[in-house]
């Protein structure tokens, strides 16, 4: 038993570390020392709690109080008021931006209320660097159960019955994939965990590895037992140093406990894992490109079939599952297929983790049952659009996905519905756009990404995306031509039809989908040479409204190219009216926020 009276949990995800949780931890240590509380209060840095917008987050147990945006200077007050006197520090509780209400418990907060945590269940609860914490909450129980009570075939049948589908993109049945590898005869097989999370704005896999690495290790071992593999590889982004480090610690601890290595639990089952660092190539999230990268080659995709389950790493049968998919496995074994089927929607059992970001109030990591509507995610959990702006669209599937416009906000989030709406599930990035976001510019942004990340193997993807980018670039600069939209559509369809891998097959999606839903914006750029959202620099001009100008000269002083001049017209208290010389203006926008009377507008 733990002799401590209270526990202070500090979120140690990358988001909170970036916002300064390490200073908070140090401050707690110092303050507890000062007040002689080190024996009574236990401070623990845990994995991602998900509410990144409000980080650094501090939770106090057993009261279960949830403090947000805690800084080092707030710590003394928490220690004195809360830990010593038992009084909650109300000013550090989460305050609803709409209602102004403060919340004592995280379970009451709208952000957490509609969530259902399965893959993230232990994130923020266990110490990721202590295997005993994981074992204390039934960790490695599912592996033991598989080894002692089930045949490999029974494990596969259970996963199939649960309906679990791959969380990394296309949503293929995990159990069926395992069955393919199981059916291939061979003396050597591999289990690969795809932790090369390259989709910009998606960070669930990293959070799981940072917060609960053992669930992934356990799941890989279960998969290895099921298909008859003895070696595992985690292919992880080098850009995730914290996740790499936590996973390294976890693998070492699992080895020490005999949960990896030879004769696990004293059985004849042996399995070990090593890590391979990725080197920053989006295409390596594609499974065959990933295999080439593990083999030390350029990450170019292979032709399928044969599928990796048959011919994979070093030509051996290989199962590649993504992190979130694996994180579901131990619980499915412990709680059963029916339990998993009871969550979510028909054909889409379980939950999905989304990284909610962009123009939304509550940025963070959310796990919701499949089949929830976009409306509920954005308004109930996400707290609506930032700054009271108008919602325009939500982007899913990253550079491979598309836009979900306002009219589809009530569709249920399932693999099939997203495809029907012209997007895809992808790895779970969900980026909310508002009225200030120009859809043509966003399409260009995504294409810039794919142009750079195209591996170059297939001509349609290598050259085609570049041609599409050139057209979009022209449109955003006011040089669009009448038949550009037709050209974009035809190029897009050709690239989709003729590329080898998922990257090329989906690269045109952001463009095709914005053309489908926001044709009027494209036309405004092309025909009227106007950007309705005011985001395309070449299509807007900064203008001073004469009625509002008070002649204070601030704008003229901040202008880097001295293009703001006075004219012979009196404004304000006997001052001169200012005007912007459009021929010289570089549209840097420096003047706009400085004007005290908001006289400068975008046209």
């Amino acid at each position, binding site marked *: 038993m733990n002799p401590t009276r209270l526990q202070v949990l500090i979120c140690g995800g*990358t*988001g909170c*570390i*970036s*916002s300064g949780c390490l200073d908070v931890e140090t401050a707690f240590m110092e303050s507890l020392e000062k007040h002689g509380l080190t024996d009574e209060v236990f401070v623990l840095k845990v994995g991602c709690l998900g*509410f*990144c*917008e*409000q*980080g650094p987050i501090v939770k106090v147990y057993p009261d279960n109080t949830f403090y947000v945006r805690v800084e080092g200077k707030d710590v003394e007050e928490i220690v004195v008021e809360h830990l010593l006197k038992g009084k909650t520090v109300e000013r550090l509780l989460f305050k609803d931006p709409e209602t102004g209400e403060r919340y004592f418990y995280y379970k009451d907060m709208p952000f957490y209320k509609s969530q259902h945590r399965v893959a993230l269940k232990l994130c923020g609860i266990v110490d990721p660097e202590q295997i005993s914490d994981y074992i204390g909450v039934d960790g490695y129980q599912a592996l033991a159960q598989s080894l002692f009570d089930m045949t490999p075939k029974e494990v596969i049948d259970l996963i199939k019955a649960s309906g679990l589908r791959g969380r990394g993109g296309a949503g293929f049945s995990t159990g069926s994939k395992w069955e393919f590898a199981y059916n291939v005869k061979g003396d050597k097989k591999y289990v690969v965990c795809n932790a090369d*999370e*390259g*989709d*910009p*704005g*998606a*960070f669930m896999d*990293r959070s799981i590895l940072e917060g609960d690495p053992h669930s992934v290790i356990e799941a890989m071992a279960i998969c290895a037992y099921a298909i008859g593999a003895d070696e595992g590889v985690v292919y992880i982004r*080098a*850009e*995730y140093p914290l996740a790499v480090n936590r996973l390294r610690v976890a693998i070492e601890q699992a080895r020490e406990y005999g949960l990896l290595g030879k004769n696990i639990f004293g059985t004849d089952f042996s399995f070990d894992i090593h890590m*391979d*660092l*990725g*080197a*920053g*190539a*989006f295409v390596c999230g594609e499974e065959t490109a990933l295999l080439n*990268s*593990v*083999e*030390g*080659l*350029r*990450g170019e995709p292979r032709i399928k079939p044969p599928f990796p389950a048959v011919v994979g790493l*070093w030509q051996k049968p290989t199962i590649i599952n993504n992190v979130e998919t694996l994180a579901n496995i131990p619980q499915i074994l412990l709680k059963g297929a029916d339990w998993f089927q009871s969550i979510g929607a028909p054909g889409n059992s379980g939950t999905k983790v989304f*990284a909610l*970001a*962009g*123009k939304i109030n509550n*940025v*963070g990591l959310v796990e919701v049952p499949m089949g929830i509507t976009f409306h509920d995610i954005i308004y109930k959990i996400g707290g609506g659009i930032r700054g009271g702006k108008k919602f325009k669209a939500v*982007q899913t599937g*990253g550079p491979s996905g598309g836009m979900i416009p306002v009219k589809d906000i009530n569709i249920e989030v399932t693999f099939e519905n997203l495809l029907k709406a012209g997007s895809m599930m992808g790895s779970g*990035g969900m*980026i909310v*756009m508002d009225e200030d*976001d120009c859809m043509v510019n*966003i399409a260009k*942004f*995504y294409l810039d990404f794919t142009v*750079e990340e195209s*591996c170059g193997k297939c001509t349609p993807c290598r050259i085609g995306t570049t041609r599409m980018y050139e057209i979009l670039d022209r449109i955003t600069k006011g040089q669009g031509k009448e038949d550009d939209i037709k050209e974009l559509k035809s190029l897009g369809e050709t690239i989709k039809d003729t590329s080898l891998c998922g990257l090329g097959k989906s690269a045109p999606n952001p463009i095709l989908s914005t053309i489908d839903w926001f044709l009027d914006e494209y036309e405004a750029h092309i025909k009227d040479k106007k950007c309705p959202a005011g985001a395309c620099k070449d299509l807007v001009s900064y203008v001073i409204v004469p009625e509002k100008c008070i002649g204070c000269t601030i704008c003229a002083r901040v202008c*880097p190219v001295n293009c703001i001049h006075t004219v012979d017209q009196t404004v304000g208290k006997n001052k001169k009216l200012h005007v912007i010389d459009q021929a010289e203006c570089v549209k840097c*926008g*420096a003047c706009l*926020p400085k004007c005290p009377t908001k006289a400068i507008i975008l046209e």
Partner: protein
Amino acid sequence: MAQTNSDTTLYAKLDEFIDSLQTKQGALIPVLHKAQEIFSYLPKEVQNHVAHKLEIPSSKVYGVVTFYSYFTMTKKGKYRVSVCMGTPCFVRGADKVLAKFESELKIKAGTTSEDGMYSIDALRCVGACGLAPVVIVNGKVYGRIQDNDVEGVIKDFLAEVEA
């Protein structure tokens, strides 16, 4: 190019790592990670050395180095400014922040200033989306940065190191 004494130590460190590997099969990427950690970048000489040690053609090493964005053939500046260009940062104005750094430091993204003081990189998502737009300078994270904060950030990191 002649090797200096400090170069010799660095090469020795790299060789030690390569010799400790159980197999050279599939070892190229881990070796390049190590080499970049030691040399901070991967110039032609280092690539040739790796090729020689692993007994593979230099062209193969070059092919891999240029394929992956994590590997760089240019030396980075004393102050490494990295601007996250993930979508959440982009929609909150990271492109303007990047442009501001480029104009303030008078170098383009992906390059290093001639005096070796500054370099700017546009990063893929760092996953700190709650702090968007995010800028990282030599490991220090600056969150919720707008273009008019850029001058302040530069002053801050210059002061930090001098202090």
